[in-house]
C-alpha cells in the first residue's frame, strides 16, 4: 500500500518536476525596447516574424533605459532579458563594464550597416531623436526654434523635457545661440557647463520633467504643458494616426542611434546573435518601414529613395538640421553631469 502510494506520488511528481525544471531554462527569448509605436510595429514585423522564421518563442518587454536593471541581472547571474535596445553611451559603457556580450560579427553581417552602427557590443538598430512640438490649435503662433522654446515671455506656459542632462544641456546651449557644430566643444569646458545650467535656470520653474516616452504626449494632449520635447516617432504617430494638430520643429532635432545588445550571460546568446542579424536585414526593415517611420542603421533601407519619400520623419535624413549626440562626450562626462543635474534639479 505504502509502496503504491509513493510510486503514484512519484509518478505525479516526476513530470511536474521536469516541467518546472525545463520551464525555468526554456523561457522564450526576450527582447526589450523603449516601447511606443516603434515597438508595436517591431513586434509584428521583426520580433514575431523572427519567431515564425526560426521556430522559437519570442516575447518582448519595455523599459525606460534603466541600466541598473541590466547590471543587477548580470551581477546576480539571473539574466531574464536577452536582447536589449540601448542608447549609444550606455552601450559603450556597458561594454566596458562587461554587462553586454561581444557581438559575434561572423553571424551578424557588418557590411549592411552604416559605419557608426558597428560596435564591439552593439549592432545599430534605428535612429531616434527628440524635437520640440506643440498643439497648433492652442498655440497658432508657436515657437520656431530652440531659442523660442526658451522664450517664456513670448511663449508663456509650461514646457516638458526628458529628465537628465543628456539632450537637456545640448538644448540649453542651442537655445543660447551656440551653433550646432560647437555644442560639444563648449560643453566640454567648465564654463560651457555653467552656461548650459544657467540657461536651464531661466526656464526651471516652467519645466515638467518626463521619464517615459509617452508622458510628453499626454502632457501636451491634456493641456498640462504647452511645448514639449518628445521622441519624434511618438509625435509623428500622434499626427499621422490620431490626427492631432501638432507641429514639430525639425530644427530642434537632437538625435542618435539606438543599438541592439546582447546581455552578458544570456542563455540564448547564439540565438540572439542570429536574431539581431535577421531583424537588421533590409527585407524585414522594409516591412516595418512601410508602417512606421523608422530610420534604420541599415544602409540599403535608409538610403532607399522610396522609403525616404514614404517616411519624411526618418531622423537620419534630417542630419542637416539636427544635432548628433556625441557618444564619446557622454561616456567621458556622463557620470559627472548626471550628478550635477540631480543636484541642480532638486534645489
Amino acid at each position: 500500500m505504502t509502496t503504491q502510494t509513493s510510486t503514484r506520488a512519484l509518478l505525479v511528481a516526476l513530470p511536474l518536476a521536469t516541467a518546472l525544471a525545463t520551464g525555468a531554462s526554456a523561457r522564450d527569448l526576450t527582447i526589450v525596447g523603449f516601447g511606443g509605436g516603434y515597438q508595436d510595429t517591431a513586434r509584428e514585423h521583426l520580433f514575431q516574424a523572427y519567431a515564425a522564421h526560426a521556430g522559437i518563442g519570442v516575447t518582448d518587454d519595455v523599459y525606460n533605459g534603466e541600466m541598473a536593471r541590466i547590471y543587477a541581472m548580470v551581477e546576480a547571474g539571473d539574466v531574464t532579458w536577452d536582447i536589449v535596445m540601448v542608447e549609444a553611451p550606455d552601450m559603450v559603457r556597458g561594454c566596458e563594464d562587461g554587462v553586454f556580450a561581444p557581438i559575434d560579427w561572423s553571424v551578424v553581417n557588418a557590411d549592411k550597416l552604416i559605419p557608426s552602427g558597428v560596435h564591439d557590443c552593439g549592432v545599430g538598430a534605428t535612429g531616434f531623436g527628440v524635437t520640440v512640438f506643440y498643439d497648433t490649435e492652442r498655440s497658432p503662433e508657436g515657437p520656431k526654434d530652440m531659442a523660442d522654446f526658451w522664450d517664456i515671455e513670448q511663449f508663456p506656459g509650461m514646457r516638458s523635457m526628458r529628465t537628465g542632462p543628456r539632450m537637456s544641456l545640448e538644448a540649453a546651449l542651442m537655445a543660447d545661440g551656440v551653433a550646432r557644430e560647437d555644442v560639444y566643444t563648449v560643453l566640454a569646458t567648465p564654463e560651457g557647463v555653467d552656461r548650459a545650467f544657467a540657461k536651464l535656470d531661466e526656464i526651471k520653474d516652467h519645466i515638467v520633467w518626463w521619464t517615459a516616452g509617452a508622458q510628453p504626449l499626454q502632457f501636451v494632449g491634456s493641456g498640462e504643458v504647452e511645448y514639449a520635447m518628445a521622441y519624434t516617432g511618438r509625435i509623428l504617430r500622434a499626427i499621422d494616426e490620431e490626427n492631432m494638430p501638432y507641429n514639430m520643429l525639425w530644427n530642434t532635432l537632437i538625435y542618435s542611434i539606438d543599438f541592439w545588445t546582447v546581455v552578458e550571460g544570456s542563455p540564448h546568446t547564439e540565438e540572439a546573435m542570429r536574431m539581431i542579424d535577421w531583424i537588421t536585414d533590409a527585407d524585414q526593415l522594409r516591412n516595418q518601414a512601410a508602417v512606421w517611420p523608422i530610420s534604420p542603421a541599415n544602409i540599403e533601407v535608409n538610403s532607399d529613395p522610396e522609403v525616404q519619400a514614404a517616411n519624411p520623419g526618418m531622423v537620419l535624413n534630417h542630419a542637416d538640421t539636427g544635432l548628433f549626440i556625441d557618444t564619446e562626450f557622454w561616456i567621458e562626462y556622463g557620470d559627472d553631469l548626471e550628478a550635477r543635474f540631480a543636484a541642480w534639479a532638486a534645489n
Partner: protein
Amino acid sequence: MDRNSRLAVLLVAPLLLLMIVGFVLPLGTTAFKAVDNPEVTAALPRTTAALGQWSGDGLPDEAVYAAFVEDLLSPQDNRVFGGLVRRLNFEQTGMRSIISGARRAAEGLQAPYSESLPALNAVWGEPEVWQLLQTHSNPYTATYLLRAMDLRMAADGSIIPVDPQQAIFRELFLRTFIISLWVTVFAVLLGYPTAWFLSTLRGRAEGLALLCVLVPFWISILVRSTAWFIVLQREGPINAALLATGVIDTPQAIIFTRPAVYLAMVHVLLPFQILPLLAVMKRIRPDYVRAAASLGARPWQQFLLVYLPMTMPGVAAGAVMVLMLSVGFYITPVLVGGLRDQMVSYYIAYFTNTSINLGMAAALSLLLLILTGLLVVAAARVLPGLNLGARV
C-alpha cells in the same frame, strides 16, 4: 538547557526567525553596503598589495607601477573592471577614461613602467592618483555616508563640504522632514474632527461613515495617487469647477507643485490618523464631558481641559504613524510632484535604478532610518500620552 526552556525557545523560534529574516538581515546588509568598498582590491589585487608598502609620499617605486600594469594585463572579467572604474569615477571625475585608457594601452607598454605610464598619461606621474588607489584599497569606506551629508574626504584625509553645485542631501533631508511634519499637522487637523464626528454616530450611520474612511484605505496607494494626478490636471475636475464658479479665469497649474504633494499625501495617510483617534474616542464616556459641564465648565473648557487630554494618546499614536510613513513616501510625490518636491526615497531609487550606485542608496537609507528613529524618540518625549511600549 532543560526541557522547558528548550520548549520555550522552540515556541518563539518562528518569531525569532521572522525577526532575523525580515529585519536584522536586510538592515545589516544595508548598513554593510553603505561602507563596503571591495572594488579596487578586487580589480587590482597586486597593486593593492604593493601599495600597502608605500608611504604615500612622493611617487611609488617601480614595483607598484609593474604590479599595476600586471593587474591591467591579467585576463579578468570586464565586470570586475567596470566596478573599479565606476567606483573611482564616483570619487574623482575623469578616472573612467584614465583607467580605461591605461588598460587599452597596457599591452604595448615597455618597462620601466614608472616612465612609460606617465608618458601615456601625465596623471600617472603624479602622487594623487596613487593616493586615491591606496585610500580606496581599504575594504571599508566612509565615502557614501559622508556624501549623504554633502561631505567628502580631501586627499589629505580631512573632511570638507562638497562642491556647492553637487550639494543636495542636507537640503533633501530637511525637505523630507518638513514635508512630513506638515503632512502630519494637516492629518491631525483634518483627522481630529472627522474622528470625533465618527465617534458620535451610532448604528447604520456609523457603519456607513466608517466604510467611507476604510474603503479608500483599502485601495492601493498607487491607484489613489494616480487618481490625484487626474483630478489635479490643468483640464481636470478641480480646475473645471474653479473656472465654472468664477474663482479663477485661467486654469491653474496645480499638479507638479508642493501643494499637490501635500494634498495627495494627506489624503493617502489620513486613515492612519483617524483610526487610532476613533479607537480612543470611542472609549471616552460622554459622562465626563457632561460632568465638566455640570460643574460649570464652558464648552471650550470642556474640550480643552477634559476631552482633548483624554484623546491625546490617539492623536500621538496617529501622528507618529503618519510621520513615519510620510518620511519614506515615494510614489505619491513622484506622481504629483515636480523634481523639487521629491524626498529622500526618490534619490534612493535614483541611485538604485539610474545611477547604479548601491553604496549611495544604502547610505541614504541608513541615514534616513537613523534620523527617523531619532525623530520618533523625540516625538515620544514631546507628545504626552504616547506610550511606545517601553519608556524611550
